[in-house]
């Protein structure tokens, strides 16, 4: 599904490059649930953003379902992204001015789904995740756990094949965090959604079936081998 080859990203500080990611090679198969771990500044989020096509490396190639992402035109890349990738953030990033319903609906708007169809899809999802009663509330009226749940539903609304989560439980308490993780596991196992999450927590990482350890922009070889 995903193949990263020799991905490097750096910033120039005083004329010298400071690497955030250095020569990353990574293959992800459909149906995997991967956790990216590592200390702060090791490049976890950057890697996730590159996989999610939000960011570009300075070097390297990226194939998504066999398509060479960096050789695509913006428009095609946007299509590929819209159809296949859902994003979840630590800070939820719900749009404050929109209700729960409208937040969830937004990705469908950008995919030009017809109004009646949109209604059906959103109603279905609200029901499935038990938040029908909250649909007219604004994000500020929800607890953190509820907001993240809305964030997940929004990420899933367009039936993406790949779900990317950047420390999804970082702002939540333990109980809320566990609920989210169980949900991820369920999505992965029952619906076959490929998930890549960035996390600090060993426990959260254990919900997945592979762990990638990053240190100073490189994949730690020992652990990579160990997981195989």
């Amino acid at each position, binding site marked *: 599904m995903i193949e990263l080859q020799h991905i490097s990203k750096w910033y120039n500080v005083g004329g010298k490059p400071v690497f955030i990611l250095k020569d990353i090679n990574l293959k992800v198969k459909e149906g995997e649930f991967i956790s990216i771990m590592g200390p702060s500044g090791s490049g976890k989020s950057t890697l996730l*953003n590159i996989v999610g096509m*939000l*960011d570009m490396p300075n070097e390297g190639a990226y194939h998504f379902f066999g398509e060479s992402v960096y050789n695509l035109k913006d*428009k095609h890349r*946007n299509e590929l*992204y*819209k159809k296949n990738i859902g*994003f979840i*953030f630590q800070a939820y*990033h*719900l*749009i*404050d*001015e*929109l209700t729960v319903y*409208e937040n969830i609906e*937004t*990705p469908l*708007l*950008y*995919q*030009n789904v017809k109004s009646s169809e949109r209604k059906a899809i959103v109603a279905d999802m609200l029901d499935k995740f038990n938040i029908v009663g909250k649909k007219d509330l604004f994000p500020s009226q929800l607890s953190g756990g509820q907001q993240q749940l809305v964030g997940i539903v*929004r990420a899933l609304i*367009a039936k993406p094949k790949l779900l990317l989560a950047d420390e999804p439980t970082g702002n939540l308490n333990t109980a809320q965090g566990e609920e989210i993780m169980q949900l991820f596991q369920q999505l992965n196992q029952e619906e076959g959604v490929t998930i890549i999450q960035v996390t600090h927590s060993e426990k959260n990482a254990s919900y997945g079936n592979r762990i990638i350890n990053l240190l100073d922009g490189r994949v730690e070889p020992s652990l990579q081998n160990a997981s195989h």
Partner: protein
Amino acid sequence: MIRNYFKIALRHLQKNKLYAFVNIIGLAIGIASCLFIGVYIWHELSYDRFHENGNRIARVTWEYHFGDATNKTATTGTKVGPQFQRTFPEVESYVRLMKYPRVIGYQDKLFEEKTFLYADSAFFSMFSFPLLIGNAATVLDAPDKLVVTESMSKKYFGSEDPVGKMIKVGIKDFMVTGVAADAPDNSQIQFDFIGSFTSLNASKEEKWTEANYVTYLLLNNSEAIAPLQNKIYAYADKVSKEEMNTTGDEYMKYHLEPLTQVRLHSKLDGLEPSNNIVYIYILGAVAILILLIAGVNYTNLSTAQSARRTSEIGMRKVLGANRLQVFNQFICETFLITLLAVVFALVICTVLVPYFNNLSGKEFNAEIFFKPFTLLSLLILASVVSFTAGAYPAIILSAGKVIHILKSGFHFTGSGTLRKSLIVFQFVISVFLIIATIVILQQLAFIQNKDLGYDKEQVIILPVDSKISEQYDDLKKALATTSNVISIGGAYESPTHIGWSDGLNRPTDGKQISINALPVDEDFVKTVGLKIIAGSDYTWGDVQAFDTTNQGNNIRYTFMLNEAAVKALGWSPEEAIGKTVSKGREGTIKAVVQDFHFRSFHEAINPMVLFLDKRMLGSIFIKISGNNTQNTIAGLEKIWKSRVPHRPFEYKFLDDEFNDLYKTEQRTAGVFTSFAFIAILLACLGLFALTAYSMVQRTKEIGIRKILGASVVDILSLVSKDFIRLIVIAMVLAIPIAIFATSKWLDSFVYKTKMEWWVFVVAGLGTLVVSLIAISLQAIKTSMANPVKNLRTE
């Protein structure tokens, strides 16, 4: 999708009320100004366009150089119309018009009617003034026929059918032959009554001179004007040599002006004062400038507060929005704001229409703002404004890279410069308008306060006609018995504007100067307070010495000259006394009066001669003390009614007549004052809102500074420093532009105020103070807040 755009826009406005308020109100004021000016300009441009034959009608004006005087007039002699029709086949018909105030009487009704026209019989077939009753071909085809307008018919005849009725015009009886619709207000030919031209004695003889008539020609096609013009030049050359016996460099010319150009493009007033296309351009420019200021506010505020939108935009992109979709969303938002502003603008215009009419001298009602054409124009204007003001923020906001937005908020690179330039631009306009306003007001004050050479205060003017002339001295005596009357004098014209031009000869060497002349009675000089600097005032003895026997051949004038005349003749005031000069007939110079302004300040004081001739008086001037004016006027009215039953008691004050000379200037001053106020208001509104946002962004910084010991004043100077610098730059740019423009305007006056340096100081300091207040309103609030609290919320 569009619905979604509007929904989020509305939510956003609700959430940011200050932002919404400043934007909507600011744009509404800008749009309202534009709407007012637009309606005004549209009305001016529509002048005389309703005539079906409009593009085939031309006005004839006359330019001549006889003796040493060159003159241009919109009036021509009686011969021009008929002779041109006989001579040039392309002239289909002609209409000569004369406007002449007449006293109209019907049964017990008696009024002085100012808009009484005499017109040739082709009037109603040449112009498209609808005739409600009567036959266009015959209503004016014989002497003493009269067409009345619908409203005059109501005024004099009520519900009766006026046709066939006899009505008194002066002392003559006219028969009403038709009823015309009231003339549209965008016609420069205005009338309440139209009498047949043949009723005038002057119509019996065709003359090139005695130019008192406005002549219109109907040509057989609209292309004919230019070729005909050349033929007319050649023809007038021939006429002036053969019939006027011109010699040397003397000439006369007739010019053709297309009817639709008369109102805005002709320098010559016709029946009604014309307007000037330059004023239309200036107003148009002002409208655009005001709208720009309002638009700039929008652009500035949107970019300034876009920091708050970054997470939303970022998220939308993460959720799959492409750049165009984000761009469209912001344009929609601008459009919504502009649309709301349009609604507010319509409310503002409806409420302020009386004030605007007062300012512009028009008579609009609010309906004009709701005509389909106006609304459509507004919609187009709104779209243009949305796009120009909204495009920049929309481009900037939609261009941000998602990853940067999500990571670190939004940073405009370079947009600070744009915002700063726009602020400078706003204040250049504001300062310019303020300076222009002060200069115009100064010039008006200068006109009001300058010694005119006569005293215009507390002088009542009443008319004199041939019937009053017969009993002039008795009437004067009777009026003088009223309490508080100081003195009474008479003259042909008012000293505010003396039009009579003449020539004066020095018999010793035959030297002739062109001169303005005014027939007066023996009390005129002291009544209006002319100052005699040599010689003495007229006496009853001078009146008695005025010998009108022998058909006037025994007349010997007594003259008073002004200083300019004496100088032109080469004498000192003292030398002139007792000398003989000739104005047609000879006379003695009895006195020299100080130069006085008998024309507007646009014109220099020319030589002037007053001569005692009580047969030619046109007005009575009554100087009163100013105590209990109401009673004095009531007393005068009583005497007038008993002695002058044929004329209504309609009086004017001399100072009002004087002020009428500067109507255009006063109007300009009104317009500039209003728009200078609006410009500075909008600019400050923008500053206020910008400060508010910069305060929000700098909350943390200000909190830290306060903890480190900064006082409120320190914080204030910190946030206002940047703005103040921009305003100072704006002033430096605006002052030369203002100096250039205002001195251009002042150049149209011969007598003008000096441009003083303090004007610029006042304009500059005023702008600074007002903008400082706008900044401080918000800044003080933030800088007084508890820093610990601020930091906690960060």
